[in-house]
């Protein structure tokens, strides 16, 4: 039983994946110029439909969020004036750009939740949704702590970034990284990228950008991101949650409650039906006696 419970809470293991093959994205928003080349490249390479042309009023962001038809999304973070944080003039708004993408979580809520096995871990360590297997149950959408994967109601199936697995298989970089003109989207070996990010961070701190930080929640149940970010200011301005949790952490409590509920029901039903047998027997006896009399 305990192994059973353990299997329910434990993330899927991937013994075949070697860290030397694990690739990742390091998105450095201090280098992003908001050109949206990555969005266009992703749509063109993957043949993703357009999302409509709406003016949102939220800076230059007219897409809003990642969705079934938006796998790269450039955020335009127009913030208050904060003079003195290296490079910020007192006269201008802070205006950051950051290209968002599926995080390809180390422990991925979508993958654990998928009942069909459509979501799998690839040899590159990324999370891949096989569209020919997905049956459109939509359970992944309520299990992604970053609100990435989404069901396309017209098609019925869920979609998200493929990490350009097709391109990686033939030795190419993902389309978005290839199109990025400033190397804000860096693609490569995950470990090397993490090292590079650290040196870039100390670089920026040295230049006075004290508000620069790396967003890679390794201390939560997500255990780190294969697509991580460097942002300036509070990550919450970029819609990056401070404590994302993989929903399998709730399963222990959930199944315990289910077992307790079932036990209570079974016990109550046993007592109630045993009682009802006695009462119906005594009734029968009473009526039998009456009929004899």
């Amino acid at each position, binding site marked *: 039983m305990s192994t*059973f419970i353990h*299997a329910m*809470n*434990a*993330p899927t293991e991937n013994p075949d994946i070697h860290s030397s093959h694990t690739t990742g994205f390091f998105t450095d928003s201090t280098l992003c110029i908001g050109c949206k080349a990555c969005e266009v490249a992703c749509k063109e390479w993957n043949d993703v*439909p357009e999302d*409509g042309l*709406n*003016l*949102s*009023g*939220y*800076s230059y*962001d*007219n897409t*809003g*969020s990642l969705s079934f038809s*938006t796998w790269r999304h450039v955020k335009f*973070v*127009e*913030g208050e004036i904060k003079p003195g944080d290296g490079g910020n003039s007192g006269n201008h*708004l802070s205006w950051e750009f950051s290209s968002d993408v599926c995080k390809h979580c180390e422990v991925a809520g979508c993958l654990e*939740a*998928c*009942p*069909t*096995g459509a979501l799998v871990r690839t040899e590159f360590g990324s999370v891949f949704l096989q569209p020919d297997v997905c*049956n*459109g*149950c939509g*359970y992944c*959408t*309520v299990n992604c*702590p970053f*609100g990435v*994967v*989404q*069901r*396309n109601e017209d098609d019925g199936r869920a979609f998200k970034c493929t990490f350009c697995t097709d391109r990686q298989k033939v030795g190419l970089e993902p389309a978005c990284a290839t199109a990025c003109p400033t190397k804000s989207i860096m693609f490569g070996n995950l470990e090397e990228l993490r090292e590079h990010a650290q040196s870039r961070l100390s670089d920026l701190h040295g230049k006075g950008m004290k508000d620069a930080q790396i967003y890679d929640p390794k201390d939560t149940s997500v255990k780190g991101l294969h697509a991580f970010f460097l942002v300036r200011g509070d990550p*919450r301005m970029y819609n990056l949650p401070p*404590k994302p949790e993989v*929903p399998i952490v*709730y*399963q222990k*409590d*959930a199944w*315990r*409650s*289910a077992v307790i*509920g079932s036990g*209570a*029901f*079974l016990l*109550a039903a046993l007592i*109630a*039906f*045993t*009682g*009802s047998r006695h009462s*119906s027997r005594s009734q029968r006896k009473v009526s039998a006696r009456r009929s004899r009399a």
Partner: protein
Amino acid sequence: MSTWPSESQKQRQPTATSEARLHELRSQAERKGRVEHVGVHPEGAPFPRASVETGYYGIPLLKQPPWTWEIPLYFAVGGAAGAAAVIAALADWIADDDKLAQDARWIAVGGAALSSVLLISDLGRPKRFLGMLRVFKLQSPMSVGAWTLTAFGSAAGAATFAKLLRSRYDWLPIRIVGEISQGMAALLGLPLHNYTGVLIGASAVPVWNKNVKTLPVHFGMSGLQAGVSVLELMGNENAALNWLGILASAFESWEGFNIESDSNRVLTPLKRGRSGFLTRAGGVLSGPTPLLLRLAAVFSKNSDSLRKLAACCGIAGSVLTRYAWMSAGRASTKDWRLPLEVEDKRPQEKPLPARMVEAVREPRRA
């Protein structure tokens, strides 16, 4: 047609007045976030800002549960079917109540069939339900549930069929198959009647995972209530049903009290707005109302009609409760503050023009 630059512009020189005007514009823009007089007046100005207080322009991070009306109804029907299978076995083996056992078996089998119809309707195509049976994954409550429902449906079907056959040919093998499948259906009915609480409780939706410790019992009791109620409306008067109804409605009352007395802001969708109304309506119909009616029925001479009334409330309450939780889940994912752990300062906040919010939140379907 005018040409540019015009003659007057060509001769224009910066003066104290022109520079003062530019400074005036700048200070206006700084103070108000916009300028008056000539020029464009963009709708929505002053422009929204991203900050720790406003998040990313208040655009929700989490995705809404995508399920259509079939799924909450499935929660109710599946819950009732699972509970009915347990009642069928115990009524047969312990209480010797043949009519009750038979009715309960029909609910189990009919409920399982209706459940799969509802699930397939949400998925769109029958073949897609088979996708659920490609693999078995303990980590995925959806997978566990799909397998449970399938196995339950087969067991309940076999039990019902065997009983039908036995009325003609009372052969030993048929009897054995009947008893075993009846036991299997009861055993699988236990998880089926409350796993849906696990399904939504162990998710990223804040109002659901906040209640993960009670949701499975809550959904199970709701299913038990619905199952008992349908059996009573089919004319079963076994007192055990009333006692099980009392247990379920007592738990539902307690759950309702718990929700109402918890002031945690994550629970707001269970109290405010459309989802709050549904939760309360469902709570009253499945909690205190049937509880009082059923307790009265224990002592009253008119117990049959009291129990029927309680049963009607119970069924309505059970269905409403499932819609309420779905609606609360949607409202919860729309609250962008929750995953970002931003304090709620709503009263002071001016809402953005609805048109713009819509444009961002609901990308047009391709």
